[in-house]
């Protein structure tokens, strides 16, 4: 195995990790505002890709407006999820919350098929890829490895969103209000923060972040209506790996998970690619055993 091909696997892993990082950011955003882990997070990613495809194909909207409409649509779904499912069960405990978000995941991932039958849009049930953001240059070389421009977009977007979310939570009134509504809901309410409203906004932000992830990944990989579950779980693994509850941990964990997964696939002969979807979860079991607080250390995991 030459140094260049190892570098190539790392490059591929970093760009895949960018998407995991975006999904992990979505998990973290909701958790920091509400102490809820949203198992339907991966569906936001799937919907981001699926809706963009829908606007491009059926509505014949140009790429950027289609992507913007898709993000808007996913934000509405995210807010709907909070209002219809999360809000009614908010006092029922962790088990019901886990099952509720899993139920939402079942509903969202199984809705596209009947909807496509009703609206006569059979293509919605097929795997799809989205067009690339920039098409003038296909890929560039780094030290002998090739990286496609789309992957650079994915990396850039996850870093930019990390920065934006960091500034939002630390420097804006609303961001701080969101933080306070999970740290101490009662105190937050006493100083005039509308806690439930903050949770709703957190779902909206998280859905938007997830949708962007979906739009960025769909040109690189085939996506389908049922792709969300696995992506969501891997994003969650990334968030735990980096340090649960931290924005920086989510992004770091996402990137590390992407690279580790890519290296497993590339470097383990035969079994690496055959069991491709397994490595992330083995990483999870290892991290939960040896360092459940993750790489950066988390205060939220005992």
């Amino acid at each position, binding site marked *: 195995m030459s140094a260049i091909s190892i570098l190539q696997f790392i490059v591929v892993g970093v760009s895949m990790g960018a998407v995991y990082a975006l999904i992990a950011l979505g998990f973290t955003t909701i958790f920091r505002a509400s102490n809820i*882990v949203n*198992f339907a997070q991966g569906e936001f990613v799937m919907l981001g890709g699926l809706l963009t495809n829908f606007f491009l194909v059926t509505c014949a909207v140009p790429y950027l407006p289609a992507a913007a409409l898709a993000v808007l649509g996913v934000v509405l779904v995210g807010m709907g999820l909070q209002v*219809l*499912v999360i809000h*009614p*069960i908010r006092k*029922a405990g*962790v*088990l*019901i919350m*886990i*099952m*509720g978000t*899993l*139920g*939402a995941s*079942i*509903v969202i991932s*199984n*809705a596209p*098929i*009947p909807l496509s*039958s009703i609206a006569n849009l059979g293509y919605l049930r097929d795997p799809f890829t989205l067009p690339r953001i920039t098409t003038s240059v296909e890929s560039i070389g780094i030290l002998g490895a090739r990286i496609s421009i789309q992957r650079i977009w994915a990396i850039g977007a996850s870093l930019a969103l990390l920065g934006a979310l960091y500034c939002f939570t630390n420097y804006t009134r609303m961001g701080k209000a969101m933080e306070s509504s999970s740290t101490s809901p009662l105190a937050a309410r006493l100083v005039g923060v509308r806690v439930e409203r903050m949770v709703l906004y957190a779902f909206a932000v998280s859905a938007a972040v997830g949708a962007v992830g979906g739009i960025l990944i769909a040109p690189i990989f085939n996506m389908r209506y049922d792709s969300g*579950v*696995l992506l969501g*779980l891997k994003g*969650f*693994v990334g968030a*735990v790996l980096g340090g*649960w509850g931290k924005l920086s941990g989510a992004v770091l964990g996402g990137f590390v998970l992407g690279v580790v997964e890519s290296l497993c696939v590339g470097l383990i002969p035969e079994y690496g690619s*055959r*069991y*491709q*979807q*397994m490595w*992330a*979860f*083995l990483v*999870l*079991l290892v991290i*939960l*055993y040896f360092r*459940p607080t993750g790489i950066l250390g988390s205060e939220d*995991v*005992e």
Partner: protein
Amino acid sequence: MKRLAKNTNFQVAVVLAVLPLFVPEDFFRFLCLGAIYSIAALGMSLLLGYAGQISLGHAAFMGIGAYTTAILTTQYNCPVSLAFLASIVASSLIAYVIGKPILRTKGFFLALATLGFGEIFFVFTSRTDPVIGGLVGIGGIPYFSIAGYEFTSYTQMHYLYWAILLGLILYAQAMVRTRTGRAFRAISVDELAASSMGIDVAGYKLKIFVISAAYAGIAGSLLTTYLSMTQPYGFRVDLSIFLVLAVIVGGMGNLWGAVAATVALTWLKDEQLSQYQEYSALIYGVILILILVFVPNGLGSLRGLFVRRAKAGTDEAAI
């Protein structure tokens, strides 16, 4: 005799024993499946309802039981009864190994870790072709038999499965009444308090995890002889969610409740929703959410609702 007549175990056993006299044999198709899934749900009820530990990977333990039986009977000509015992050992053993790291976590993380374990099992079984047949799985598994007696008709299987279930429920009832059972309840309420009372929290958690995996292994082994085949998609996360849902609907810490809920949900899923084809999963998801929103404490809690209402009525009358 009077005490016996009031015993739930006895009542249910009598009803199930005389049922074949009154209903057509077709009816037992779903009742057999209901019994098999109920055995797994019993294990989940012990783990979740008594000890308060969630697992979204129990389908994998069923799968381990199923695959052990399938491999031993089809490729090593092992008698089914022996393969059945091996299945229980296999699922318990893997639960013991995997339980140590996994059970250090709680709540959301325990859910994720067990989900991850289930996904590892699915990827492994669906991507391994030799011996276990990849996505196609294994077929041609013989019927359950003990000492040459083969259970082939639905009625025979009905008696077999419910007899096993009754034995397992008696074992579970006996266990939860002992010191061990009280330790589980203490752990589910407050782990810190439990450990300060001298309860070996990690040890008990591992014990209940292994026992509930053994129940799942029994269910998986029976399922594979019932269907005479096994495949990875039969043991995915949706089955784990189904088992957790059955425990919620039946009421936490209510063993017969979990059985009744499993039979009812099996009927709903296999006999009713399946006719809606591509809508079935969507409808199932919606029903799941509605259950969580309106009866998060199980259907048994509805009875309490009526009692409380009646009380409130009398209070008003008093004023």
